[in-house]
Protein backbone atom coordinates (compact mmCIF):
# COMPACT_ATOMS: atom_id res chain seq x y z
CA UNK A 1 0.00 0.00 0.00
CA UNK A 2 1.44 3.37 -0.92
CA UNK A 3 1.08 6.37 1.27
CA UNK A 4 -1.54 7.97 -0.98
CA UNK A 5 -3.89 5.04 -0.49
CA UNK A 6 -4.08 5.46 3.26
CA UNK A 7 -7.67 6.15 4.22
CA UNK A 8 -6.99 8.94 6.70
CA UNK A 9 -4.82 11.42 4.84
CA UNK A 10 -3.41 14.16 6.93
CA UNK A 11 -4.94 17.40 5.79
CA UNK A 12 -2.84 20.50 5.14
CA UNK A 13 -4.37 22.30 8.10
CA UNK A 14 -3.41 19.54 10.52
CA UNK A 15 0.13 19.57 9.15
CA UNK A 16 0.35 23.33 9.62
CA UNK A 17 -0.87 23.12 13.23
CA UNK A 18 1.63 20.35 13.90
CA UNK A 19 4.56 22.40 12.55
CA UNK A 20 3.36 25.50 14.35
CA UNK A 21 3.28 23.72 17.68
CA UNK A 22 6.77 22.33 17.10
CA UNK A 23 7.99 25.89 16.53
CA UNK A 24 6.20 27.17 19.64
CA UNK A 25 7.73 24.43 21.77
CA UNK A 26 11.16 25.30 20.40
CA UNK A 27 10.58 28.97 21.23
CA UNK A 28 9.70 27.93 24.78
CA UNK A 29 13.02 26.09 25.08
CA UNK A 30 14.90 29.15 23.82
CA UNK A 31 13.01 31.42 26.23
CA UNK A 32 13.92 29.15 29.13
CA UNK A 33 17.62 28.96 28.28
CA UNK A 34 18.32 32.57 27.28
CA UNK A 35 17.90 33.96 30.84
CA UNK A 36 20.34 31.37 32.17
CA UNK A 37 22.94 32.34 29.57
CA UNK A 38 22.36 36.05 30.27
CA UNK A 39 22.64 35.64 34.04
CA UNK A 40 25.75 33.48 33.92
CA UNK A 41 27.33 35.73 31.30
CA UNK A 42 26.67 38.92 33.29
CA UNK A 43 27.82 37.44 36.58
CA UNK A 44 31.06 36.23 34.97
CA UNK A 45 31.78 39.49 33.17
CA UNK A 46 30.90 41.84 36.01
CA UNK A 47 32.23 39.63 38.77
CA UNK A 48 35.58 38.56 37.35
CA UNK A 49 37.29 42.01 37.68
CA UNK A 50 36.50 42.01 41.42
CA UNK A 51 38.05 38.63 42.14
CA UNK A 52 41.52 38.50 43.67
CA UNK A 53 43.22 36.68 46.53
CA UNK A 54 42.85 39.75 48.74
CA UNK A 55 39.14 39.99 47.89
CA UNK A 56 38.62 36.44 49.10
CA UNK A 57 40.51 36.83 52.37
CA UNK A 58 40.17 40.47 53.50
CA UNK A 59 37.51 41.96 55.75
CA UNK A 60 35.08 44.46 54.17
CA UNK A 61 36.08 48.13 54.14
CA UNK A 62 34.11 51.35 53.85
CA UNK A 63 33.03 52.15 50.31
CA UNK A 64 35.75 54.67 49.54
CA UNK A 65 38.60 52.56 50.87
CA UNK A 66 39.90 49.93 48.45
CA UNK A 67 41.02 46.44 49.39
CA UNK A 68 37.76 45.34 50.98
CA UNK A 69 37.00 41.64 50.80
CA UNK A 70 34.56 38.89 51.59
CA UNK A 71 36.66 36.81 53.99
CA UNK A 72 34.17 36.92 56.88
CA UNK A 73 31.26 36.23 54.51
CA UNK A 74 32.95 33.11 53.11
CA UNK A 75 33.84 31.93 56.60
CA UNK A 76 30.32 32.62 57.91
CA UNK A 77 28.62 30.84 55.01
CA UNK A 78 30.77 27.76 55.54
CA UNK A 79 30.22 27.74 59.31
CA UNK A 80 26.45 28.05 58.99
CA UNK A 81 26.03 25.58 56.14
CA UNK A 82 28.29 23.18 58.03
CA UNK A 83 26.24 23.60 61.18
CA UNK A 84 23.07 23.16 59.14
CA UNK A 85 24.47 19.91 57.72
CA UNK A 86 25.50 18.65 61.17
CA UNK A 87 21.92 19.04 62.37
CA UNK A 88 20.07 18.02 59.24
CA UNK A 89 22.06 15.00 58.05
CA UNK A 90 21.24 12.70 61.00
CA UNK A 91 17.61 13.81 61.17
CA UNK A 92 17.09 13.84 57.41
CA UNK A 93 18.76 10.47 56.84
CA UNK A 94 16.86 8.97 59.80
CA UNK A 95 13.52 10.25 58.53
CA UNK A 96 14.41 9.13 54.99
CA UNK A 97 15.17 5.58 56.18
CA UNK A 98 11.88 5.55 58.03
CA UNK A 99 9.95 6.74 54.94
CA UNK A 100 11.45 4.02 52.78
CA UNK A 101 11.83 1.03 55.16
CA UNK A 102 8.61 1.54 57.10
CA UNK A 103 6.65 2.92 54.18
CA UNK A 104 3.46 1.17 55.22
CA UNK A 105 3.21 2.81 58.62
CA UNK A 106 0.78 5.67 59.00
CA UNK A 107 3.37 7.89 60.69
CA UNK A 108 5.63 7.39 57.70
CA UNK A 109 2.92 8.54 55.27
CA UNK A 110 1.99 11.59 57.34
CA UNK A 111 5.55 12.62 58.08
CA UNK A 112 6.59 12.00 54.46
CA UNK A 113 3.75 14.20 53.32
CA UNK A 114 4.67 16.97 55.78
CA UNK A 115 8.25 16.63 54.60
CA UNK A 116 7.25 17.27 50.99
CA UNK A 117 5.12 20.20 52.08
CA UNK A 118 8.06 21.61 54.02
CA UNK A 119 10.32 21.57 50.93
CA UNK A 120 8.04 24.10 49.27
CA UNK A 121 7.74 26.39 52.26
CA UNK A 122 8.68 30.09 52.09
CA UNK A 123 12.16 30.21 53.61
CA UNK A 124 11.46 33.70 54.95
CA UNK A 125 8.83 32.22 57.28
CA UNK A 126 11.25 29.52 58.45
CA UNK A 127 13.71 32.30 59.32
CA UNK A 128 11.09 34.12 61.40
CA UNK A 129 10.34 30.88 63.22
CA UNK A 130 13.97 30.44 64.22
CA UNK A 131 14.11 34.12 65.21
CA UNK A 132 11.23 33.55 67.64
CA UNK A 133 12.67 30.27 68.93
CA UNK A 134 16.34 31.14 69.30
CA UNK A 135 17.18 34.81 68.74
CA UNK A 136 14.47 36.01 71.14
CA UNK A 137 15.79 33.55 73.74
CA UNK A 138 19.51 34.24 73.40
CA UNK A 139 18.91 37.97 72.71
CA UNK A 140 21.57 37.91 70.00
CA UNK A 141 21.71 37.21 66.27
CA UNK A 142 24.09 34.30 65.83
CA UNK A 143 25.68 31.78 63.51
CA UNK A 144 23.96 29.15 65.63
CA UNK A 145 20.51 30.55 64.83
CA UNK A 146 21.49 30.87 61.15
CA UNK A 147 22.67 27.26 61.08
CA UNK A 148 19.43 26.04 62.64
CA UNK A 149 17.40 28.03 60.09
CA UNK A 150 19.40 26.46 57.25
CA UNK A 151 18.97 23.00 58.78
CA UNK A 152 15.18 23.41 58.51
CA UNK A 153 15.63 23.91 54.77
CA UNK A 154 18.13 21.07 54.38
CA UNK A 155 16.37 18.37 56.43
CA UNK A 156 13.39 17.75 54.11
CA UNK A 157 15.64 17.68 51.03
CA UNK A 158 17.93 15.10 52.60
CA UNK A 159 15.01 13.05 53.91
CA UNK A 160 13.31 12.89 50.51
CA UNK A 161 16.42 12.04 48.48
CA UNK A 162 17.43 9.42 51.06
CA UNK A 163 14.06 7.71 50.95
CA UNK A 164 13.90 7.81 47.14
CA UNK A 165 17.36 6.30 46.77
CA UNK A 166 16.72 3.60 49.39
CA UNK A 167 13.54 2.63 47.59
CA UNK A 168 15.72 1.80 44.57
CA UNK A 169 17.60 -0.82 46.61
CA UNK A 170 16.16 -4.19 45.49
CA UNK A 171 13.92 -5.92 48.03
CA UNK A 172 15.74 -9.17 47.31
CA UNK A 173 18.83 -7.78 49.06
CA UNK A 174 16.82 -7.13 52.21
CA UNK A 175 15.24 -10.57 52.02
CA UNK A 176 18.59 -12.26 51.50
CA UNK A 177 19.99 -10.51 54.55
CA UNK A 178 16.98 -11.36 56.71
CA UNK A 179 17.12 -14.99 55.52
CA UNK A 180 20.67 -15.19 56.87
CA UNK A 181 19.30 -14.25 60.25
CA UNK A 182 20.75 -10.76 60.28
CA UNK A 183 18.57 -8.50 62.43
CA UNK A 184 16.61 -5.76 60.75
CA UNK A 185 18.63 -2.88 62.20
CA UNK A 186 21.82 -4.40 60.86
CA UNK A 187 20.17 -5.06 57.49
CA UNK A 188 19.08 -1.43 57.27
CA UNK A 189 22.38 0.08 58.36
CA UNK A 190 24.83 -2.31 56.65
CA UNK A 191 23.02 -3.52 53.54
CA UNK A 192 20.37 -0.98 52.58
CA UNK A 193 22.26 2.17 53.54
CA UNK A 194 25.54 1.13 51.99
CA UNK A 195 23.81 0.15 48.73
CA UNK A 196 21.94 3.45 48.60
CA UNK A 197 24.80 5.66 49.75
CA UNK A 198 25.23 7.45 46.43
CA UNK A 199 21.70 8.72 46.60
CA UNK A 200 22.32 9.80 50.16
CA UNK A 201 25.39 11.77 49.15
CA UNK A 202 23.35 13.37 46.35
CA UNK A 203 20.79 14.53 48.86
CA UNK A 204 23.39 16.04 51.17
CA UNK A 205 25.13 17.86 48.30
CA UNK A 206 21.82 19.22 46.97
CA UNK A 207 20.87 20.39 50.43
CA UNK A 208 24.26 22.08 50.91
CA UNK A 209 23.91 23.82 47.53
CA UNK A 210 20.43 24.99 48.40
CA UNK A 211 21.47 26.28 51.85
CA UNK A 212 24.52 28.10 50.42
CA UNK A 213 22.25 30.20 48.23
CA UNK A 214 19.66 31.11 50.85
CA UNK A 215 19.38 34.70 52.03
CA UNK A 216 15.92 35.20 53.54
CA UNK A 217 16.28 32.74 56.45
CA UNK A 218 19.54 34.40 57.53
CA UNK A 219 18.22 37.99 57.62
CA UNK A 220 16.79 37.74 61.13
CA UNK A 221 18.86 34.86 62.47
CA UNK A 222 22.54 35.44 61.66
CA UNK A 223 22.16 39.06 60.50
CA UNK A 224 25.59 40.22 59.37
CA UNK A 225 29.03 41.25 60.55
CA UNK A 226 32.14 42.87 59.13
CA UNK A 227 34.64 40.85 61.12
CA UNK A 228 35.66 37.21 61.15
CA UNK A 229 33.43 35.12 63.40
CA UNK A 230 34.98 34.22 66.75
CA UNK A 231 31.96 32.61 68.34
CA UNK A 232 28.89 30.70 67.21
CA UNK A 233 26.77 33.01 69.35
CA UNK A 234 27.52 36.35 67.73
CA UNK A 235 26.14 37.95 64.53
CA UNK A 236 27.82 36.37 61.52
CA UNK A 237 28.35 37.42 57.91
CA UNK A 238 27.29 35.30 54.94
CA UNK A 239 27.91 35.54 51.19
CA UNK A 240 24.25 35.97 50.31
CA UNK A 241 23.52 38.75 52.80
CA UNK A 242 26.75 40.43 51.77
CA UNK A 243 25.55 40.40 48.14
CA UNK A 244 22.15 41.72 49.18
CA UNK A 245 23.50 44.59 51.30
CA UNK A 246 26.04 45.65 48.70
CA UNK A 247 23.61 45.33 45.80
CA UNK A 248 21.14 47.75 47.39
CA UNK A 249 23.87 50.09 48.71
CA UNK A 250 23.87 52.22 45.57
CA UNK A 251 27.65 52.73 45.73
CA UNK A 252 29.33 51.57 42.47
CA UNK A 253 32.45 50.22 44.20
CA UNK A 254 30.33 48.09 46.54
CA UNK A 255 28.12 46.86 43.68
CA UNK A 256 31.24 45.63 41.87
CA UNK A 257 32.15 43.67 45.00
CA UNK A 258 28.61 42.26 45.12
CA UNK A 259 29.11 40.92 41.58
CA UNK A 260 32.43 39.41 42.65
CA UNK A 261 30.80 37.62 45.57
CA UNK A 262 27.94 36.51 43.30
CA UNK A 263 30.47 35.01 40.86
CA UNK A 264 32.16 33.05 43.64
CA UNK A 265 28.81 31.80 44.94
CA UNK A 266 27.58 30.82 41.47
CA UNK A 267 30.81 28.94 40.74
CA UNK A 268 30.47 26.91 43.95
CA UNK A 269 26.78 26.19 43.34
CA UNK A 270 27.24 25.25 39.67
CA UNK A 271 30.08 22.92 40.61
CA UNK A 272 27.96 21.25 43.30
CA UNK A 273 24.93 20.91 41.03
CA UNK A 274 26.86 19.61 38.05
CA UNK A 275 28.71 17.15 40.26
CA UNK A 276 25.38 15.82 41.49
CA UNK A 277 23.67 15.77 38.10
CA UNK A 278 26.46 14.40 35.96
CA UNK A 279 27.83 11.70 38.22
CA UNK A 280 26.14 10.25 41.23
CA UNK A 281 22.71 11.79 40.80
CA UNK A 282 22.02 10.26 37.45
CA UNK A 283 19.70 7.62 38.80
CA UNK A 284 17.71 9.62 41.24
CA UNK A 285 15.37 11.71 39.18
CA UNK A 286 13.50 12.64 42.34
CA UNK A 287 16.49 14.60 43.56
CA UNK A 288 15.89 16.99 40.71
CA UNK A 289 12.27 17.51 41.60
CA UNK A 290 12.85 18.47 45.17
CA UNK A 291 15.21 21.34 44.48
Amino acid at each position, binding site marked *: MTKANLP*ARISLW*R*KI*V*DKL*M*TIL*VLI*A*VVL*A*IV*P*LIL*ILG*DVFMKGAPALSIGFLTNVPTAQNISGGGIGPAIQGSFIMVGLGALISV*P*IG*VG*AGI*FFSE*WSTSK*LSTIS*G*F*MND*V*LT*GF*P*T*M*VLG*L*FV*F*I*LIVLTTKEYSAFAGGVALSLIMTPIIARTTSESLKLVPTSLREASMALGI*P*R*WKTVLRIVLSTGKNGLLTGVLLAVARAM*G*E*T*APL*LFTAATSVIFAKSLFLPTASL*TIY*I*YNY*AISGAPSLVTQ*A*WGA*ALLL*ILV*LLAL*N*LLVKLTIGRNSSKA*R*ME*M
Partner: protein
Amino acid sequence: MQFRIRGDTILKILLIAAALFIIGIVVALAAELYKGAAASIFKFGPAFLIGSKWKVNKNEFGALPFIYGTLLTSAIAIVIGFPISLGVAIFISEKLKSHRSFGYVLGIIVDLLAAVPSVVYGLWGVFVLIPLLRTYAQTPLHHYLGFIPLFSGNPNLGSDFFTAGIVLAIMIIPTMSAVSRDVLNAVPNSQREAMYSLGATDWEVTQKSVLPYARSGIFGGFILGLGRAFGETMAVTMLIGNIPTITANLFSPGYTLSSLIANEFGGSSGLYESSILEIALILFAVALLVNVLARLLLWRMNRGIQIKF
Protein backbone atom coordinates in the same frame (compact mmCIF):
# COMPACT_ATOMS: atom_id res chain seq x y z
CA MET B 1 17.95 -13.00 70.64
CA GLN B 2 17.72 -10.45 73.39
CA PHE B 3 20.23 -8.25 71.57
CA ARG B 4 18.44 -8.46 68.25
CA ILE B 5 15.21 -7.15 69.69
CA ARG B 6 16.99 -4.33 71.47
CA GLY B 7 18.85 -3.23 68.31
CA ASP B 8 15.67 -3.20 66.26
CA THR B 9 13.82 -1.25 68.93
CA ILE B 10 16.55 1.35 69.31
CA LEU B 11 16.78 1.92 65.57
CA LYS B 12 13.03 2.20 65.20
CA ILE B 13 12.77 4.67 68.08
CA LEU B 14 15.49 6.84 66.57
CA LEU B 15 13.87 6.79 63.15
CA ILE B 16 10.43 7.54 64.55
CA ALA B 17 11.94 10.45 66.46
CA ALA B 18 13.33 11.85 63.19
CA ALA B 19 9.97 11.43 61.46
CA LEU B 20 8.15 13.06 64.37
CA PHE B 21 10.66 15.91 64.30
CA ILE B 22 9.51 16.84 60.79
CA ILE B 23 5.86 16.89 61.81
CA GLY B 24 6.92 18.83 64.91
CA ILE B 25 8.55 21.59 62.82
CA VAL B 26 5.35 22.25 60.89
CA VAL B 27 3.18 22.20 64.02
CA ALA B 28 5.56 24.38 66.07
CA LEU B 29 5.88 26.79 63.17
CA ALA B 30 2.11 27.29 63.05
CA ALA B 31 1.86 27.60 66.84
CA GLU B 32 4.69 30.13 67.20
CA LEU B 33 3.45 32.31 64.36
CA TYR B 34 -0.06 32.26 65.78
CA LYS B 35 1.20 33.17 69.23
CA GLY B 36 3.20 36.07 67.84
CA ALA B 37 0.35 37.27 65.65
CA ALA B 38 -2.32 36.96 68.36
CA ALA B 39 -2.24 40.66 69.34
CA SER B 40 -2.85 41.72 65.76
CA ILE B 41 -5.48 39.03 65.16
CA PHE B 42 -7.50 40.12 68.21
CA LYS B 43 -7.11 43.82 67.43
CA PHE B 44 -8.07 43.80 63.76
CA GLY B 45 -9.92 40.52 63.28
CA PRO B 46 -10.74 39.51 59.71
CA ALA B 47 -10.63 43.18 58.67
CA PHE B 48 -6.83 42.80 58.63
CA LEU B 49 -7.16 40.81 55.41
CA ILE B 50 -9.05 43.56 53.58
CA GLY B 51 -7.50 46.60 55.24
CA SER B 52 -5.43 48.61 52.79
CA LYS B 53 -3.71 50.99 55.22
CA TRP B 54 -0.22 50.32 56.58
CA LYS B 55 0.54 53.26 58.86
CA VAL B 56 3.14 52.42 61.47
CA ASN B 57 2.89 55.70 63.42
CA LYS B 58 -0.90 55.43 63.69
CA ASN B 59 -0.87 51.70 64.52
CA GLU B 60 -3.14 50.97 61.57
CA PHE B 61 -2.32 47.79 59.71
CA GLY B 62 -3.97 45.98 56.80
CA ALA B 63 -2.64 43.19 54.60
CA LEU B 64 -4.52 43.81 51.37
CA PRO B 65 -1.82 45.65 49.36
CA PHE B 66 0.68 42.91 50.20
CA ILE B 67 -1.72 40.09 49.40
CA TYR B 68 -2.49 41.90 46.16
CA GLY B 69 1.19 42.31 45.32
CA THR B 70 1.92 38.65 45.99
CA LEU B 71 -1.04 37.51 43.88
CA LEU B 72 -0.32 39.89 41.01
CA THR B 73 3.40 39.12 40.71
CA SER B 74 2.69 35.38 40.99
CA ALA B 75 0.00 35.68 38.32
CA ILE B 76 2.45 37.40 35.94
CA ALA B 77 5.01 34.69 36.71
CA ILE B 78 2.54 31.90 36.00
CA VAL B 79 1.14 33.45 32.80
CA ILE B 80 4.66 33.73 31.39
CA GLY B 81 6.37 30.80 33.10
CA PHE B 82 3.80 28.04 32.78
CA PRO B 83 3.54 27.87 28.96
CA ILE B 84 7.34 28.03 28.70
CA SER B 85 7.76 25.24 31.26
CA LEU B 86 5.18 23.06 29.57
CA GLY B 87 6.83 23.72 26.20
CA VAL B 88 10.23 22.68 27.57
CA ALA B 89 8.73 19.54 29.11
CA ILE B 90 6.96 18.60 25.86
CA PHE B 91 10.14 19.22 23.87
CA ILE B 92 12.24 17.00 26.14
CA SER B 93 9.79 14.17 26.67
CA GLU B 94 8.00 14.07 23.31
CA LYS B 95 10.22 15.62 20.64
CA LEU B 96 13.47 14.19 22.00
CA LYS B 97 12.04 10.77 22.69
CA SER B 98 14.60 9.11 20.48
CA HIS B 99 17.46 11.34 21.71
CA ARG B 100 17.38 10.54 25.41
CA SER B 101 20.82 11.82 26.28
CA PHE B 102 20.28 15.16 24.54
CA GLY B 103 17.01 15.52 26.42
CA TYR B 104 18.81 14.68 29.65
CA VAL B 105 21.44 17.38 29.07
CA LEU B 106 18.80 19.96 28.13
CA GLY B 107 16.94 19.04 31.32
CA ILE B 108 20.08 19.66 33.37
CA ILE B 109 20.60 23.05 31.72
CA VAL B 110 17.06 24.18 32.53
CA ASP B 111 17.43 22.79 36.06
CA LEU B 112 20.49 24.99 36.55
CA LEU B 113 18.13 27.97 36.67
CA ALA B 114 17.13 26.61 40.07
CA ALA B 115 20.77 26.62 41.20
CA VAL B 116 21.05 30.39 40.84
CA PRO B 117 20.39 31.92 44.28
CA SER B 118 17.50 34.29 44.73
CA VAL B 119 19.77 37.17 45.72
CA VAL B 120 21.76 36.79 42.50
CA TYR B 121 18.50 36.98 40.52
CA GLY B 122 17.85 40.19 42.44
CA LEU B 123 21.29 41.62 41.70
CA TRP B 124 21.00 40.72 38.03
CA GLY B 125 17.44 42.06 37.92
CA VAL B 126 18.40 45.44 39.34
CA PHE B 127 21.43 46.09 37.15
CA VAL B 128 20.72 44.16 33.93
CA LEU B 129 17.07 43.21 33.56
CA ILE B 130 15.49 46.53 34.58
CA PRO B 131 17.25 48.53 31.83
CA LEU B 132 16.65 45.70 29.32
CA LEU B 133 12.94 45.49 30.04
CA ARG B 134 12.57 49.26 30.05
CA THR B 135 13.96 49.54 26.54
CA TYR B 136 12.65 46.37 24.91
CA ALA B 137 9.41 45.57 26.74
CA GLN B 138 7.92 48.29 28.90
CA THR B 139 8.39 51.24 26.55
CA PRO B 140 7.01 49.43 23.45
CA LEU B 141 4.13 47.92 25.46
CA HIS B 142 3.26 51.35 26.80
CA HIS B 143 3.58 52.92 23.37
CA TYR B 144 1.41 50.44 21.48
CA LEU B 145 -0.89 49.01 24.18
CA GLY B 146 -0.99 51.97 26.56
CA PHE B 147 -4.78 52.19 26.21
CA ILE B 148 -5.03 48.96 28.28
CA PRO B 149 -4.91 49.86 32.01
CA LEU B 150 -2.25 47.17 32.58
CA PHE B 151 0.29 49.06 30.49
CA SER B 152 -0.90 52.63 31.01
CA GLY B 153 1.63 53.65 33.66
CA ASN B 154 5.00 55.30 33.36
CA PRO B 155 7.25 52.62 31.80
CA ASN B 156 10.49 54.15 33.09
CA LEU B 157 10.30 53.42 36.81
CA GLY B 158 11.99 50.05 36.60
CA SER B 159 11.10 48.64 40.02
CA ASP B 160 7.54 47.45 39.54
CA PHE B 161 5.11 44.51 39.45
CA PHE B 162 6.08 43.76 35.85
CA THR B 163 9.82 43.34 36.48
CA ALA B 164 9.28 41.35 39.68
CA GLY B 165 6.81 39.10 37.84
CA ILE B 166 9.25 38.43 34.98
CA VAL B 167 12.06 37.45 37.36
CA LEU B 168 9.65 35.21 39.28
CA ALA B 169 8.69 33.57 35.97
CA ILE B 170 12.35 32.74 35.31
CA MET B 171 12.72 31.39 38.85
CA ILE B 172 9.73 29.04 38.73
CA ILE B 173 10.41 27.63 35.26
CA PRO B 174 12.82 24.93 36.54
CA THR B 175 10.34 23.75 39.20
CA MET B 176 7.39 23.53 36.85
CA SER B 177 9.27 22.10 33.88
CA ALA B 178 11.03 19.42 35.98
CA VAL B 179 7.74 18.19 37.42
CA SER B 180 5.95 18.29 34.05
CA ARG B 181 8.87 16.47 32.43
CA ASP B 182 8.78 13.66 34.98
CA VAL B 183 5.04 13.38 34.61
CA LEU B 184 5.13 13.29 30.80
CA ASN B 185 7.92 10.70 30.91
CA ALA B 186 5.67 8.54 33.07
CA VAL B 187 2.90 8.45 30.43
CA PRO B 188 2.89 4.90 29.01
CA ASN B 189 3.85 4.56 25.37
CA SER B 190 0.74 2.57 24.58
CA GLN B 191 -1.11 5.82 25.15
CA ARG B 192 0.84 7.44 22.30
CA GLU B 193 0.88 4.41 20.01
CA ALA B 194 -2.89 4.09 20.09
CA MET B 195 -3.20 7.65 18.88
CA TYR B 196 -0.53 7.28 16.19
CA SER B 197 -2.26 4.17 14.87
CA LEU B 198 -5.31 6.31 14.23
CA GLY B 199 -3.18 8.50 11.97
CA ALA B 200 -2.65 11.43 14.31
CA THR B 201 0.13 13.97 13.91
CA ASP B 202 2.77 14.44 16.63
CA TRP B 203 0.94 17.42 18.09
CA GLU B 204 -2.41 15.63 18.09
CA VAL B 205 -0.84 12.77 20.01
CA THR B 206 0.56 15.20 22.57
CA GLN B 207 -2.58 17.29 22.81
CA LYS B 208 -5.25 14.61 22.81
CA SER B 209 -3.50 11.66 24.35
CA VAL B 210 -0.43 12.60 26.41
CA LEU B 211 -1.50 15.86 28.05
CA PRO B 212 -4.94 14.65 29.21
CA TYR B 213 -3.31 11.56 30.71
CA ALA B 214 -0.75 13.68 32.57
CA ARG B 215 -2.98 16.59 33.50
CA SER B 216 -3.22 16.04 37.25
CA GLY B 217 0.57 15.79 37.51
CA ILE B 218 1.07 18.87 35.34
CA PHE B 219 -1.42 20.72 37.50
CA GLY B 220 0.55 19.60 40.55
CA GLY B 221 3.69 21.11 39.03
CA PHE B 222 1.77 24.28 38.22
CA ILE B 223 0.64 24.64 41.85
CA LEU B 224 4.15 23.88 43.09
CA GLY B 225 5.49 26.68 40.90
CA LEU B 226 2.77 28.97 42.21
CA GLY B 227 3.82 28.11 45.77
CA ARG B 228 7.40 29.03 44.98
CA ALA B 229 6.29 32.33 43.50
CA PHE B 230 4.21 33.11 46.60
CA GLY B 231 7.08 32.51 48.98
CA GLU B 232 9.96 33.98 47.00
CA THR B 233 11.52 36.84 48.95
CA MET B 234 14.88 38.33 48.04
CA ALA B 235 14.64 38.83 44.28
CA VAL B 236 11.15 40.33 44.59
CA THR B 237 12.19 42.59 47.46
CA MET B 238 15.01 43.97 45.34
CA LEU B 239 12.80 44.53 42.29
CA ILE B 240 9.28 45.50 43.26
CA GLY B 241 9.87 48.98 44.69
CA ASN B 242 8.41 48.21 48.12
CA ILE B 243 5.53 50.70 48.15
CA PRO B 244 2.12 49.32 49.18
CA THR B 245 -0.05 49.88 46.11
CA ILE B 246 -3.24 48.41 44.69
CA THR B 247 -3.55 49.19 41.02
CA ALA B 248 -4.15 47.42 37.74
CA ASN B 249 -1.12 49.22 36.34
CA LEU B 250 1.73 46.71 36.03
CA PHE B 251 4.32 49.48 35.71
CA SER B 252 3.72 50.64 39.27
CA PRO B 253 5.82 49.80 42.31
CA GLY B 254 4.19 47.40 44.74
CA TYR B 255 4.87 45.32 47.80
CA THR B 256 4.48 41.61 48.62
CA LEU B 257 3.90 39.64 51.82
CA SER B 258 7.41 38.22 51.94
CA SER B 259 9.20 41.44 51.01
CA LEU B 260 7.31 43.26 53.77
CA ILE B 261 8.69 40.76 56.26
CA ALA B 262 12.22 41.07 54.86
CA ASN B 263 12.18 44.88 54.94
CA GLU B 264 10.26 45.73 58.08
CA PHE B 265 10.49 42.90 60.61
CA GLY B 266 13.91 43.96 61.88
CA GLY B 267 13.42 46.71 64.43
CA SER B 268 9.65 46.32 64.68
CA SER B 269 7.93 45.90 68.02
CA GLY B 270 4.52 45.73 69.72
CA LEU B 271 1.48 45.75 67.46
CA TYR B 272 3.68 46.50 64.44
CA GLU B 273 5.69 43.32 65.02
CA SER B 274 2.54 41.34 65.67
CA SER B 275 1.00 42.57 62.41
CA ILE B 276 4.08 41.47 60.48
CA LEU B 277 3.85 38.07 62.16
CA GLU B 278 0.22 37.89 61.05
CA ILE B 279 1.44 38.60 57.52
CA ALA B 280 3.84 35.67 57.98
CA LEU B 281 0.94 33.56 59.23
CA ILE B 282 -1.04 34.39 56.08
CA LEU B 283 1.96 33.41 53.99
CA PHE B 284 2.27 30.20 56.01
CA ALA B 285 -1.41 29.34 55.53
CA VAL B 286 -1.31 30.00 51.80
CA ALA B 287 1.93 28.05 51.38
CA LEU B 288 0.48 25.14 53.37
CA LEU B 289 -2.68 25.08 51.28
CA VAL B 290 -0.84 25.33 47.97
CA ASN B 291 1.77 22.74 48.84
CA VAL B 292 -0.73 20.26 50.27
CA LEU B 293 -2.80 20.56 47.10
CA ALA B 294 0.24 20.13 44.85
CA ARG B 295 1.57 17.16 46.80
CA LEU B 296 -1.79 15.43 46.84
CA LEU B 297 -1.97 15.74 43.05
CA LEU B 298 1.60 14.56 42.56
CA TRP B 299 1.40 11.73 45.07
CA ARG B 300 -1.72 10.40 43.46
CA MET B 301 -0.04 10.54 40.08
CA ASN B 302 3.44 9.24 41.00
CA ARG B 303 2.89 6.67 43.67
CA GLY B 304 -0.54 5.37 42.92
CA ILE B 305 -1.56 6.13 46.49
CA GLN B 306 -5.28 6.60 46.57
CA ILE B 307 -6.15 9.79 48.35
CA LYS B 308 -9.78 10.72 48.49
CA PHE B 309 -10.61 14.39 48.16
